[in-house]
């Protein structure tokens, strides 16, 4: 039955990527406005008000829902910018807004009591009590679970809550509890919570030093590799550091998340939707990933094995992990 198939929630950083995701089989698409109200506030990405309205209409005509992420934490004294983002997204016909901040949830719940509010992963609601607090207080209809939980814990949460759960399945992997991390802010002054950026390119510098290629963030060395090796982007928590005699990736290797093989377990755990990370990725990438996961969700719903080879191709040359979904990751 169609209603049982896992919903595939796809990223769109641009209007073109939105159309690509819709055409490739997305069930829903998430995106944000081109300002600091969303957690992927990168140069050249995201939507103007007009583009959002057009994008939502394009998706709606094809039965696809658009979810608008307004998931940074409004700055004191400037909340009106975030309030307008909520009002405008809903006026454009967004299926839901994805919010993290308590004050913004309170605003949206009061002004738009009949509209769908989704709780962003940035709210880091990591157990049934926290989720039920948001549900009882603001009427949230869905929670995007933080990437700190095992599949078993997700199943236990779903037994105790009435709202839908959405989990990350593929793409970038935060190793810290999202929405509660100031690492980027410490090194660069720019943070996910306040500015919608993490380890921003504006603060990255590459340098050739002797036989090495060095990647620095805010002046701190994150990677130092031989010139022949491609230096990964210096995302702070994936850096190579030293402590005592230990030298290595203290927090996490430069890996990305691929939990495709866990789709049947996640479905059995009561998960409603699978989220693909990557609003900053290209249209070609979005197209491939969305197609693959749409087929995988259809296979899962039909009780067929997940077509692995296709998903492997997408992470070619890159290490992947199932992250916190397996307890041994901790």
């Amino acid at each position, binding site marked *: 039955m169609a209603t049982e198939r896992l919903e595939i929630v796809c990223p769109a950083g641009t209007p073109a990527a939105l159309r690509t995701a819709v055409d490739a089989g997305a069930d829903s698409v998430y995106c944000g406005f081109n300002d600091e109200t969303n957690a992927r506030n990168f140069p050249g990405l995201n939507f103007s008000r007009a583009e959002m309205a057009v994008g939502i209409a394009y998706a709606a005509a094809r039965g696809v829902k658009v979810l608008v992420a307004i998931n940074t934490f409004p700055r004191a004294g400037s909340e009106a910018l975030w309030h307008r983002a909520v009002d405008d997204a809903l006026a454009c016909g967004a299926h839901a807004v994805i919010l993290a901040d308590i004050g913004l949830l309170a605003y949206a719940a009061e002004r738009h009591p009949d509209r769908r509010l989704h709780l962003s992963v940035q709210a880091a609601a990591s157990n049934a009590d926290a989720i039920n607090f948001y549900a009882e207080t603001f009427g949230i209809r869905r929670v995007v679970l933080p990437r700190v939980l095992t599949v078993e814990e997700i199943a*236990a949460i779903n037994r105790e809550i009435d709202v839908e759960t959405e989990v990350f399945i593929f793409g970038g992997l935060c190793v810290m*509890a999202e929405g509660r991390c100031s690492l980027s802010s410490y090194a660069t002054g720019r943070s996910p919570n306040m500015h919608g950026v993490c380890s921003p390119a504006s603060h990255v510098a590459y340098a050739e030093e002797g036989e090495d290629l060095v990647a620095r963030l805010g002046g701190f060395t994150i990677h130092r590799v031989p010139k022949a090796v491609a230096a990964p982007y210096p995302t702070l928590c994936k850096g190579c550091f*030293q402590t005592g005699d230990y030298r290595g990736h203290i927090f996490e290797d430069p890996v990305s998340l691929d939990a495709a093989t866990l789709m049947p377990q996640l479905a059995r755990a009561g998960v409603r939707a699978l989220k693909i990370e990557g609003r900053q990725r290209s249209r070609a990438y979005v197209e491939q990933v969305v197609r693959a996961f749409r087929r995988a969700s259809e296979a899962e719903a039909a009780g067929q094995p997940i077509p692995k080879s296709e998903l492997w191709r997408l992470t070619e040359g890159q290490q992947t992990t199932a992250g916190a979904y397996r307890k041994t990751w901790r």
Partner: protein
Amino acid sequence: MELTVGPLLFHWATDAWSDFYARLADEAPVDRVVIGESVCSKRLPLYADRITEAVERLERAGKTVVLTSLALVTLPRERRAAAGLFAQTGHEVEIDDLTLMRWAGKGDDAHCPGFSIGPLVNVYNESTLRFFAARGARSVCLPPELPFASVASLAAAAQPLGIGVEVFAFGRVPLALSARCYHARVHGRTKDSCQFVCDRDPDGMVVRTLDGQDFLAVNGVQTLSYNCCNLIDDVGTLRQAGVTALRLSPHSGDFVSVCRAFRSAIDGQGDDPAALLPGHIPAMPYSRGFMFGATGAE
């Protein structure tokens, strides 16, 4: 302006833990002491039987004692412990994870003389502050990454709401939390098999870049700054902005002298309260970057 001692974030030997709170009770000129485990629930059983004695001694010395919640609550026993905090009579509770908001200010906390919001809950703006004030929070310790402009806005909004605003004023700054234990990872273990290896680093395990720059400090599942936040020279500015309390985060060494130095700064005694700070604790450069600089590390 009040002085609050935040929860001891690091894993100390049980006797060192007891001695720290005994000396704090007897000698430190502070108003509030937040006590309990906020970082890792595995540590709590190791000193849980010492808490009652420490609380009694602090209260005999006239300090207000506040019980902290865990900062990242996922396991069933962690949820039970969180819910149980409100059942303990007579002590204010500091909420460092919104799990407890399910019960706070809704009558389930009738035995509890009140609750406050800790620095690991995201209070970035006036609407969020109003929400917690309406729910009955007595005070909010703002997130350490907030710049002074935000602190000033929030402190101004707090006054008519009758809610106190505290800022993180001394100590390595909590930057991140994870489900993964990095102390265990570095020592080739997992969180479940950690054997409490975090007890080797009473002020956190220093993380350096491959170029030898001091960068961060790891404390089990928590990551902190290498630099030590120190706002002792900014006490006047903060007070003028309407900040009602300063938080001092415990470190090894002569922490009582840290408390005394800040008390002198608040009371306006002496020409240079900063000179009273003990010459250190572990060597940690001071920083006021998050509040006043371009980056937190500045």
